[in-house]
């Protein structure tokens, strides 16, 4: 029976419906030397979609540093690989699943986790940790946001976290960290970025490069259905309109149990030595896995669709090639050793079917019951897609509203404002969410969600440990994409260093609006510059990641939101530091990598401008304006080096960086996460002596300002002299600001009490706020 699809005549109109421009269509005609049939058109359309081809971002991504002493594999494979010593490598990558998670939050987030896990184990690494960087619209009453929207935002959040838990918990990977941030701009376009980390022995890595003419191509895992067709092209590579919910059939459906079996079977099959190459079927499914493996290996692949395991009847070549059914892999085995592979998959009860072979002619040839359904040069689809130099234009300067709020002139009691800040969903404890994730399975989790600035994993094969943190600040990137992006790198690296680990590599998830808009492309280009500069300064090359464009609904883009995942290495996992205070009587010290403090009037104006972009300004004054804090990458580097040194000497008990909510929130969190849960702090903050009384920072700015390159550490009082000495060696200032106590949490500024209350009452606000907002959902 001839399928209906092959009878559809491919016209420029049909090509346009597939999201291909007239130029792109002409390019296809030129490559083929003829008109494509409908299956071929479908193949080109997904492979040349923004999501798969990086056609708008490719020229910019080249500016990122991708090499370094630890890097084994940079961008271009399924995931990045870094050497972590003792013959081991860490395999890690972050990826977005934004649009599916809006259309169908539970399945969208679940399959986002599933997809990134496959990227890790397809390289021969066993996944040991997942982090999720999430952004939603407001879930608490917010000016200008309707009750209905808030309810919907809660519903989206609930679906996303249930989906993440559903997949990761069953699969058996520890979900150890990430972030959850709330801003109105994410209401109709939440961000769900999942990072996965795996471990492998260096010599056991697998790559997706087909080789060996005549070698069999084997399809393994779940059967192919019609789900997810055009997920990459229609969902991920277009803006949302009012009808976006109708795209629900384009969202894939996840089965973590199937993926767990696939993991075990793939790793076992790899150990037989009979597997030559392997790639997961993620975006663009069978199409991308076959032509990318062929293209990387410089060979061709021939597939017979009649042999592809199918879940439903009547599927056309078009359907099968474009399906994004989950939990599937394509592998190339060594000819003559197929049996060994089949035996492993049979043991795990999975389909494994020889569907084709490696050929010498470089063509992706798709056969269907004896006839040729598609015949395309594999390299041309995978590597010769369009590359765009999209127009770039800086947006018109928006009027700063930083003058809309005035600081209290004299130090005053800020306890009530402090409470509001602790209750704000971005700052409040995320335990209500992270308790729904298995954060400990596989027993490697030294510090899981909320216990340290970075998640820390010990490695059973060695004394070493790994630390991971994801960070990003869309609000700052909106104000200044270049500096905001630098902050994302710096904060992730600083978090990793606070856990005691040396940052060694990074992965990035670049969430932006429509690249066809010159202002969005300008944001993107600026962010790339910032990431590049910061990664070079901090020695954290980019090893991979993903670009997510078209994060817009009804023409309104999200804040440009580059999310950085930084990986750190601990020589000894036992040296890892948590963020909570450990012992009553310990001394609290503020480490500051920026040696000189701002002191003149000019600087203070600048400070006020920067303060207007803080979490405090947003929460208390409903202002998001001004500029993001200036960044001093050299200062960040000094602080990082100093923290790593102090941790390796075990001279400090805890470390917590200053970020959202400033030093006030940092100090409070170190109390809330203290070992026994009942430690508190008595703090006395003062402007540097050189600063004239009239020029001192307002208390609010001092307490809640978010300038980088700073961390709060605690140590035994006997270590103070030594710590000061080490800090001085690294060019970091170390100021004793208080003591770990039991009793009231007290901060005074310039001798005046500014925050005071029982640590328990503060903790309760911080701990219960998110649950209160969401339990009612």
């Amino acid at each position, binding site marked *: 029976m001839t399928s209906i699809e092959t009878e559809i005549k491919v016209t420029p109109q049909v090509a346009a419906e597939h999201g291909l421009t007239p130029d792109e269509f002409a390019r296809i005609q030129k490559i083929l030397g003829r008109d494509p049939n409908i299956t071929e058109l479908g193949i080109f359309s997904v492979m040349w979609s923004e999501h798969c081809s990086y056609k708008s971002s490719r020229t910019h991504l080249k500016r990122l540093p991708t090499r370094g002493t630890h890097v084994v594999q940079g961008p271009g494979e399924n995931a990045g690989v870094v050497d972590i010593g003792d013959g081991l490598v860490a395999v890690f990558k972050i990826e977005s699943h934004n649009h599916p998670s809006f259309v169908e939050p539970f399945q969208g987030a679940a399959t986002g986790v599933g997809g990134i896990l496959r990227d890790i184990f397809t390289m021969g690494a066993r996944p040991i940790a997942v982090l999720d960087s999430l952004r939603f619209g407001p879930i608490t009453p917010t000016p200008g946001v309707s009750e209905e929207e808030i309810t919907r935002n809660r519903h989206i959040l609930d679906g996303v976290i249930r989906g993440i838990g559903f997949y990761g918990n069953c699969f*058996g990977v520890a979900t150890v960290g990430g972030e959850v941030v709330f801003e109105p701009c994410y209401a109709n376009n939440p961000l769900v970025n999942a990072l996965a980390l795996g471990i492998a022995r260096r010599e056991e890595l697998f790559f997706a490069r087909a080789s060996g003419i005549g070698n069999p191509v084997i399809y393994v895992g779940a059967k192919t259905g019609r789900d997810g067709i055009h997920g990459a092209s229609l969902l991920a590579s277009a803006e949302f309109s009012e009808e976006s919910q109708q795209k629900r059939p384009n969202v894939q459906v996840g089965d*973590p149990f*199937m993926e767990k*079996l696939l993991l075990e079977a793939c790793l076992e099959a790899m150990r037989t030595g009979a597997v030559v190459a392997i790639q997961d079927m993620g975006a663009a499914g069978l199409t991308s896995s076959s032509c990318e493996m062929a293209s990387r290996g410089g060979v061709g692949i021939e597939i017979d669709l009649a042999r592809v395991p199918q879940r439903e009847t009547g599927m056309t070549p078009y359907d099968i090639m474009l399906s994004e059914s989950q939990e599937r892999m394509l592998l190339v085995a060594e000819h003559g050793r197929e049996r060994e592979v089949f035996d492993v998959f049979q043991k795990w009860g999975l389909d494994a079917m020889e569907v084709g072979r490696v050929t010498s002619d470089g063509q992706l040839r798709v056969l269907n019951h004896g006839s040729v359904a598609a015949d395309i040069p594999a390299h041309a689809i995978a590597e010769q897609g369009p590359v765009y130099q999209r127009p770039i234009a800086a947006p018109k300067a928006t009027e700063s509203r930083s003058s809309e709020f005035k600081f209290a002139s004299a130090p005053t009691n800020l306890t009530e404002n402090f409470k509001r800040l602790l209750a704000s969903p971005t700052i409040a404890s995320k335990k209500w969410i992270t308790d729904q994730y298995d*954060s400990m*399975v*596989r*027993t490697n989790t030294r510090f899981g969600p909320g216990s340290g600035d970075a998640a820390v994993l010990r490695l059973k094969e060695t004394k070493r440990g790994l630390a991971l943190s994801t960070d990003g600040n869309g609000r700052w990137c909106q104000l200044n994409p270049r500096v905001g992006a630098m902050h994302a790198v710096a904060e992730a690296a600083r978090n990793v260093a606070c856990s005691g680990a040396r940052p060694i590599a990074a992965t990035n998830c670049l969430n932006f609006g429509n690249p066809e808009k010159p202002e969005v492309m300008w944001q993107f280009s600026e962010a790339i510059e910032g990431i590049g500069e910061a990664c070079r300064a901090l020695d954290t090359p980019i090893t991979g990641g993903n670009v997510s464009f078209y994060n817009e609904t009804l023409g309104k883009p999200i804040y440009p939101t580059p999310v950085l995942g930084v990986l750190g290495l601990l020589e000894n996992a036992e040296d890892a530091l948590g963020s909570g205070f450990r012992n009553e009587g310990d001394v609290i010290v503020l480490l500051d990598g920026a040696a000189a403090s701002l002191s003149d009037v000019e600087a203070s104006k600048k400070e006020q401008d920067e303060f207007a972009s803080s979490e405090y300004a947003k929460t208390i004054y409903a202002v998001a304006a001004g500029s993001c804090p200036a960044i001093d990458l050299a200062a960040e580097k000094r602080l990082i080096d100093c923290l790593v040194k102090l941790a390796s000497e075990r001279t400090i008990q805890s470390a917590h960086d200053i970020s959202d909510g400033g030093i006030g929130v940092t100090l409070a969190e170190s109390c809330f996460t203290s070992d026994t849960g009942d430690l508190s702090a008595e703090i006395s903050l003062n402007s540097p002596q050189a600063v004239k009384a009239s020029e001192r920072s307002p208390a609010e700015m001092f307490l809640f300002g978010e300038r980088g390159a700073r961390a709060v550490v605690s140590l035994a009082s006997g270590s103070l002299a030594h710590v000061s000495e080490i800090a001085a060696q690294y060019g970091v200032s170390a100021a004793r600001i208080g003591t770990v106590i039991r009793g009231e949490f007290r901060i005074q500024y310039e001798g005046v009490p500014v925050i005071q209350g029982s640590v328990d009452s503060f903790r309760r606000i911080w701990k219960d706020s998110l649950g209160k907002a969401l339990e009612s959902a």
Partner: protein
Amino acid sequence: MKFGVVQFPGSNCDDDAFHAVADIIKQPVEFLWHQSEQVAGCDAIVLPGGFSFGDYLRTGAIAKFSPVMRAVGRFARSGGLVLGVCNGFQILLESGLLPGAMMRNQRLRFLCRQVHCRVESTDTPFTCAAKQGQVLKMPIAHMEGNYFCDAETLADLERNRQVIFRYVHADGRSAGPQDFDANPNGALSAIAGICNRERNVLGLMPHPERAVESLLGSSDGLVIFRSLVASLTQRASVPA
């Protein structure tokens, strides 16, 4: 002395149990595949946590039909020691080797966190090295850990001192009704673990194998493995 750790498709704490036995208490241990018809000369069997067969139907409902469970049943009835952790506990309930059933956690959400549970009886091969009333800090990680049984069964359990672990506060205080801080999944009578009447089969929701190294937050679970070793050592020295 040899431990066996059963592997069902979807078990995901099998490696952790193996690690605890092999690398921490340093005893011989091997995996038992779900299709195995026998328990291969093992002296103690661990049914590990995870999502056997995906647990899409009801936790443990499919695993109980595995060939290995027939072998585990025979092993248990002949007095062999069987420890079921989390999904392993659920499978023991489904198999009828322990009484009662699991409902969804009271909040209907998966819950992973450190909990405290009190050793209610040291008169089992799993707790003989513990002190009566000792409080163990161990993590839970489950969606269905809300233990339930009828009043008669509960009375039986109490009368025969089959409740071995109860969720309590950190200081050992009992959890009151609706006291979800201490008894987070809402289990009947704050039951975290029970044994059979013969005391050779134990199921518990907290994960002792995740609490065997202080580096990871607690080593309180060690006492369960040490009890097993002590019991097996004693059994070996007493002629049957």
